[in-house]
């Protein structure tokens, strides 16, 4: 049952944001069908404001869809069982500024039901993995954007999830870290983890992902297999989303 439904299954999902008087303001997602199978690395792509993060929040059960149905591991997305099997990296890192790097990891480890010893072990491993052992005792409130990103990434992995949801994992990272994240995703996928990620780095997405979907104005405009894609993802993206009007700097400067 789970196999046939896939790890993530969206059917006709839409999300309308409303203002205080319940008047619709934004149709962020419209009639979206999406399914991610076990072991797949799936790229959710689209220009700014196309509804990627909104879709992810609905998959996580953080937002209720206005229409359609979301299933996560064949269950309601906010069921505790579904939540215990996933890791999530939000588009910004959102850390508790008064906790140190180590405490941050230990906190999420505790929420994932890890016993203290395992939590300590994994915390040490993950701190080493993201290269922040030397600052493990510093409050994360003082971290640079990239450092915070690494801690948040480590947090998403602390429970050894079956499904990892990464919302722009490389935003704010330097080129070396970016390629490290790329190989991290490859390694995790080889280990059998299902991964859903968004990214604006289309070249990198093409390298690590199995399948992709492109959103534009909340609608799915393309979907396909990356392993058999003949052209570059960049070309597909531009042909589906269209070349923007661009910034009219000359007009501004006049």
């Amino acid at each position, binding site marked *: 049952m789970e196999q046939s439904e896939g790890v993530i299954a969206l059917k006709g999902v839409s999300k309308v944001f409303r203002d205080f008087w319940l008047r619709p303001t934004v149709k962020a997602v419209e009639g979206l069908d999406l399914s991610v199978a076990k072991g797949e690395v799936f790229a959710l792509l689209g220009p700014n404001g196309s509804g990627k993060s909104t879709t992810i*929040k609905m998959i*996580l*059960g*953080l*937002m209720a869809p206005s229409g359609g149905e979301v299933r996560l591991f064949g269950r309601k997305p*906010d069921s*505790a*069982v579904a*939540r*215990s099997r*996933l890791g*999530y990296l*939000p588009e*910004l890192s*959102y*850390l*508790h500024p*008064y*906790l140190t790097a180590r*405490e941050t990891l230990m*906190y*999420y480890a*505790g*929420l*994932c*039901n890890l016993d203290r010893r395992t939590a300590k072990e994994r915390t040490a491993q993950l701190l080493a993995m993201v290269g922040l052992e030397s600052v493990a005792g510093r*409050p994360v409130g003082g971290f640079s954007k990239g450092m915070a990103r690494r801690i948040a990434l480590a*947090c998403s992995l602390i*429970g050894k999830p079956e499904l990892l949801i990464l919302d722009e994992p490389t935003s704010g990272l330097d080129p070396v870290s970016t390629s490290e994240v790329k190989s991290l995703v490859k390694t995790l996928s080889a280990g059998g983890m299902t991964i859903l990620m968004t990214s604006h780095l289309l070249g990198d997405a093409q390298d690590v992902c199995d399948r992709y979907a492109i959103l534009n104005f909340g609608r799915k405009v393309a979907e396909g297999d990356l392993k058999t894609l003949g052209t570059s993802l960049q070309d597909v993206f531009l042909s589906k989303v269209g070349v923007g009007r661009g910034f009219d700097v000359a007009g501004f400067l006049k």
Partner: protein
Amino acid sequence: MKKFLEILVLESKRLVRTGTAGMLASAAVAWMFAMPYLVRSDGTASGATEMYMKYSLGGVFALVTVALAASAAGSISAERDEKRLQLTLARPVRFFVVALGRMAAISLCGAAVLALATAILVAKIDSRPCSRVYSPKMESPREEALRLYDSVMQDPGIDAEIKKAPKDAILRVLEQKAWDNYQTIPKGRDAAWKMGDVDAKGRLMSVRLRFTNNFDTREKVVGVFRYGGFSGSISNVTQAVVAVPLDSQEVLPEGDPSVLTFSNRGENTLMLRPRRDIKLLVEADSFAMNAVRAWIVLSSMLALVVAFAVFLGSALGKAVAIFTVMSFLAVTEMGPSVVEQYPDALETDTRDRISLMVTRAVGKVTRPVGSFTPLESLAANDMVEFGEVARAVGEDMVVLPLLLAFLSGLALSFKKV
């Protein structure tokens, strides 16, 4: 349980590391030591002590309540406003645990600061043991009001306009009157009050008498109190409140031993309100023990306020939650005096009637926090009753916060980001 502790520790770290806990503790200590210099007493040593007992700990309680209510209202709501909350809620943790853990951490912080203040109070005050307080066993004011209601309505001497008022309003007035009913004891006569079950084996006893009349007549009161095999006499009273010690009598009295009597041996008629002015005191345990009980009750009241604030924070945005909880605290604080000051005569105006109704409704909800204050008992050296401690812990610290935590969980499941 484990996750509850995780959240509790997280919230405690927030309180400590953002400086909230430290600031509160220092402010509490500063107030405990500075208060006698800031608040003037009537000049007597006992007056100063009583002032200190009431306002030192009372000031700290007010400070802690306001500060932590604001902090609690902002606890979950700020996390949501800053989008951090989604990371916790995307983990396998029950939403009510998220609320409960935060309630517990903030309440513990408040209890710790109150404990510090209580310890300073006990160290600074060298007080005699506290006493258990017994009132005469009488019909309750409510019962008296209900009993009198029909005869008032039939009394042709009472204005028809008044009779048109709602039954509730009339009952309230009658109840108020019942509290203030005077009893007259002419010279040479005895008065007797049944005291019910008094547990006084081998303990020191006294009678506390409060005078509402002026100094001249007070001075001429002469008489003897008797209770069980004990008696004590009174004459030449100067204070408004006196405690008459009861000593064992050689001659055992006849009649019911559970009745307190007063024989008026003076030249004047004595008037007093038995429901308010006469109490039998039985020595109980030490002042320190009483302070500990008062601390438990205060901490429970604080826990309830904190739980309510956390609930508001989980349902509303930060600014709105803080504003709402502050308004509630204000109404709780002022409500009783508003209701007392504007009795039912004003209820002819619709607007007044509506606002009084709202105030009374809120007052009913917040009564546990608003009405009983153990500080009064502590200052008067009256024992904070075990029953009151048990009620406070059970209701204010356990049952109501649990209920509010469940409601918070519900609110969180609707409003996560």
